[in-house]
């Protein structure tokens, strides 16, 4: 029986449900000390002086550092040359939350006390806390080296003025894609121990080898004695692939004081210091005919990079503009983007990283076309879909060569669940009844780019390469250990990889272990991000397992005095096809694989061990169709999601239980962006949502249940056929929710509402219509 596709319970769970997980903050090596930051309370200011005298003499304090202590060190890796963030602010702070000083003490309470005693004298500078402020004439400049606040501007190659001028109809939207804080429930945590035998850094991180390579390079130390361990990691969502000063400071301080140094971020720090996501503004225009067929699309993206632009953040508008056309055949597409610095927390990847922004805008435009033409939104989608026989489909972007998809099929599947005609009648009825809640129905046919990626794709973000490693190593008793460079943080990779390997090796699922997250254990690796763990890493497990199995068959054939081509396996027993009575068990093949006298000629001992650096020729393109049904309270403006219908096409499903979990989680974050979450700054750059009292991460009582469905167009770029599913929900949900709200209010002439759609925004619209 194949395990790929089976609802298998997770191997990860027994530890995690009993309190036996091991997160970085759970580690407490002998002599462990605690590091605490003093973070800037100013958005933009000169540092006149830092008085550390009182902190230094507090009993238990081991070190107090400011930029003066590390003046010779390079800035934090990952930034843009000349615009990168110092490990500790030097002379100037550029956002609230930037590190100004650190204290190390014998315990966290003393370290926090000492941090309170440090007095920083700031000379405030004017701050720019929004894109419009940063781009205004005469705006204060964050980085003198830049001259202005625009880091990079990519203009339209052809602004399509003639197409728009000649089009029967056009429409435009200015869209704000709200800044979100990724907020994994485990904040950033790291623990460094730099002794005579080298540096070990335990870190809540998604890509330990990437961090190992970088930290070794940064300090000029050899990689063989630099070890990074990401043990259990409490969620990442893209925010734990960024290099932050914490890693380098704990390492340095450990070397300095000769003891392990741990940093455990508080939530309030996390909300301002862990890199944010989204933070784009779009100017989007679409040209179309009277039947709702799209003739041209023009998208200009302005990306808020925060105070210090980094490689990942710079990549966000590239991905957004590459995916601008979504599921649709659009004859002419023009794209432009601009990266701007502001006095806010730096921006980088957050679940979807550039693709939710693309999907949101094109799906809002589709509904706008429906509104303008009177053609039903479902029908507008159908009239513009790329047809199923058009793949591979070249888009306007060389990055996005769509490999496969069935967008109409997903929409058909969705409409089996949604009683659309009844809902539309109910909507009309309620509009006539002032006591009834308004009803809205919103659709999103979404598409994203995932499975990062083909050669060159991750190198562009500073990674060593874009493959993923897999090593399959048979033990003498016939059990198997798989080592993977894809370092999970909740995805269930241990389970899915064991499923894949069990099918390929013919070894029982319970006798397969998966090891990850330790550069001293896993040969090499890239990491888990961009929905790549199964599409790239899982494919590697399949490839390596297949190679091991072929070698195992050769040994079995030798023992059975048969030909390897005739060998099959069942219930962990190898036999010649058709004669199961005479068999050799996996355990015997494994044992003898280490004994030269038992091996066929030319075969070396230890041959049941294969390491693969799995490459894939293209990105993957998960897609789907979602529908959200909302009710709106006319008195309060409150939006309540009544139903959320979700049809995903992630290609082959390895484990339906885990895929459903990924979809739910992504959708929850998408709903959160649409209705609740917004990292807000006041005009002076002070964050107004810097604790969980203000930043609304939804609870169970805030979110709906989900109805899920599935279509399957296999991924042609790997033999598994899997596309990835980790980010899909956050790509598909926001437009479905906002389209539903706008639909509910469309009779009042509402064309668009920016996220998050809070009760006050809706209430103001309802009041204005009275």
């Amino acid at each position, binding site marked *: 029986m194949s395990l790929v596709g089976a609802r298998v*319970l997770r191997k990860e769970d027994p530890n995690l449900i009993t309190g036996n997980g091991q997160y970085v903050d759970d580690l407490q090596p002998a002599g462990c000390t605690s590091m605490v930051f003093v973070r800037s309370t100013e958005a933009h200011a000169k540092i006149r002086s830092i008085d550390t005298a009182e902190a230094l003499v507090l009993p238990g304090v081991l070190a107090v550092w400011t930029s003066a202590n590390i003046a010779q060190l390079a800035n934090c890796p990952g930034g843009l040359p000349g615009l990168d963030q110092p490990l500790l602010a030097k002379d100037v702070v550029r956002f609230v939350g930037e590190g100004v000083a650190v204290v190390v003490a014998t315990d966290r309470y003393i370290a926090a006390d000492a941090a309170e005693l440090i007095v920083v004298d700031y000379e405030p500078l004017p701050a720019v806390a929004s894109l419009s402020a940063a781009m205004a004439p005469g705006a204060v400049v964050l980085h003198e080296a830049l001259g202005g606040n625009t880091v990079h501007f990519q203009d339209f190659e052809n602004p399509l003025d003639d197409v728009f001028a000649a089009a029967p109809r056009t429409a435009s939207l200015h869209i704000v894609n709200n800044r979100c804080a990724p907020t994994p*429930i485990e904040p950033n945590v790291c623990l460094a121990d730099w002794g005579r035998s080298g540096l070990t850094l335990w870190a809540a991180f998604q890509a330990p080898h990437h961090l190992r390579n970088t930290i070794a390079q940064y300090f000029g130390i050899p990689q063989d004695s630099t070890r990074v361990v990401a043990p*259990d990691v409490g969620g990442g969502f893209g925010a734990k692939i960024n290099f932050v000063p914490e890693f380098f400071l704990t390492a340095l301080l450990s070397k300095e004081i000769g003891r392990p140094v741990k940093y455990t971020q508080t939530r309030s720090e996390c909300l301002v210091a862990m890199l944010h996501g989204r933070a784009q503004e779009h100017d989007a225009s679409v040209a179309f005919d009277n039947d709702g067929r799209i003739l041209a699309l023009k998208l200009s993206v302005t990306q808020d990079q925060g105070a210090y632009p980094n490689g990942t953040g710079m990549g966000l508008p590239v991905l957004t503009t590459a995916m601008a056309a979504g599921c649709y055949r659009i004859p002419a597409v023009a794209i432009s983007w601009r990266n701007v610095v502001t006095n806010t927390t730096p921006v980088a990847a957050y679940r979807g990283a550039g693709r939710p922004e693309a999907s949101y805008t094109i799906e809002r435009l589709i509904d706008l076309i429906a509104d303008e033409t009177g053609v039903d939104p479902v029908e507008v989608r159908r009239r513009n879909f790329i047809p199923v026989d058009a793949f591979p489909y070249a888009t306007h972007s060389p990055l996005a060569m769509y490999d496969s998809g069935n967008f109409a099929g997903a929409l058909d599947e969705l409409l089996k669940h949604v009683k659309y005609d009844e809902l539309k009648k109910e909507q009309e009825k309620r509009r006539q009844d002032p006591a009834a809640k308004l009803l809205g129905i919103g659709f999103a046919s979404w598409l994203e780019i995932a499975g990062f990626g083909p050669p060159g794709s991750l190198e562009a973000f500073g990674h060593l390469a874009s493959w993923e490693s897999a090593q399959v190593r048979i033990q003498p008793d016939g059990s198997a250990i798989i080592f993977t460079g894809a370092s999970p943080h909740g995805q269930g990779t241990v389970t899915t990889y064991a499923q894949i390997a069990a099918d390929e090796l013919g070894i029982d699922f319970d006798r397969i272990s998966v090891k990850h997250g330790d550069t001293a254990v896993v040969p090499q690796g890239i990491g888990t991000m961009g929905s790549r763990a199964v599409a790239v890493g899982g494919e590697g497990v399949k490839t390596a397992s297949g190679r091991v199995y072929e070698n195992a068959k050769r040994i079995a054939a030798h023992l059975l005095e048969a030909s390897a081509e005739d060998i099959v396996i069942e219930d962990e027993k190898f036999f010649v096809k058709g004669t199961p009575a005479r068999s050799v068990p996996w355990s015997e093949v494994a044992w003898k694989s280490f004994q030269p006298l038992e091996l066929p000629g030319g075969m070396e001992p230890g041959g049941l061990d294969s390491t693969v650096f799995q490459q894939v020729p293209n990105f993957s393109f998960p897609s789907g169709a979602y529908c959200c049904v909302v009710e709106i309270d006319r008195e309060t403006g409150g939006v309540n999601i009544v139903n959320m219908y979700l049809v995903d096409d992630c290609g082959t499903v390895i484990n339906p239980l885990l895929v459903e979990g990924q979809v*739910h*989680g992504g959708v929850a974050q998408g709903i959160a962006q649409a209705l609740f979450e917004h990292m807000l700054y006041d005009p002076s750059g002070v964050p107004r949502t810097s604790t*969980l009292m203000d930043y609304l*991460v939804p609870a169970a009582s805030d979110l709906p249940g989900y109805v899920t469905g599935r279509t399957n167009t296999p991924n042609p770029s790997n033999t598994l056929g899997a596309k990835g599913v980790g980010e899909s929900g956050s790509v598909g949900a926001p437009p479905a929710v906002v389209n539903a709200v706008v639909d509910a209010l469309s009779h009042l002439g509402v064309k668009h509402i920016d996220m998050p759609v809070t009760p006050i925004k809706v209430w103001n619209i309802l009041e204005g219509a009275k």
Partner: protein
Amino acid sequence: MTIRTSITVNGKETSREVEARTLLVHYLREELSLTGTHVGCDTSNCGACTVLLDGEAVKSCTLLAAQVHDCNVTTIEGAAQADGSFSPVQEGFRQEHGLQCGYCTPGMIMASTALLSENPNPSEEEIRQALEGNLCRCTGYEMIVNAVRWAAEHPNFTSGGAK
């Protein structure tokens, strides 16, 4: 200022001389090395630190260890049954994929355990309301609701010993 604090944790008496300001969660994690109870925020919003105090769900980041002197505390390490079987709630989370990264899970399990002891057969709505003080960023909550329902439907679950 230090204070002698005695707390019964998972049925075992513990006693430590701690700083008066020591939070219960740090007493559990750092004095007793019971690291299953996690810290996820500093404003009592996230519930990752939820434990049972004399049977009631409380946030151990919001209590001083000294405040619970002479009380009974149950942490995730004490959630399993006497024979080592997972509790129905633990097993429900496993069966229904009620966890992904696992960081909020101990708090979720303890809050769910308290709910079921008060209301052995909660509706979906009652579960969602009861867990509103516990944040999960991974699951979108539906599978957590299903996990609690599983536990409600299998009150006598036993795996027949240690797992």
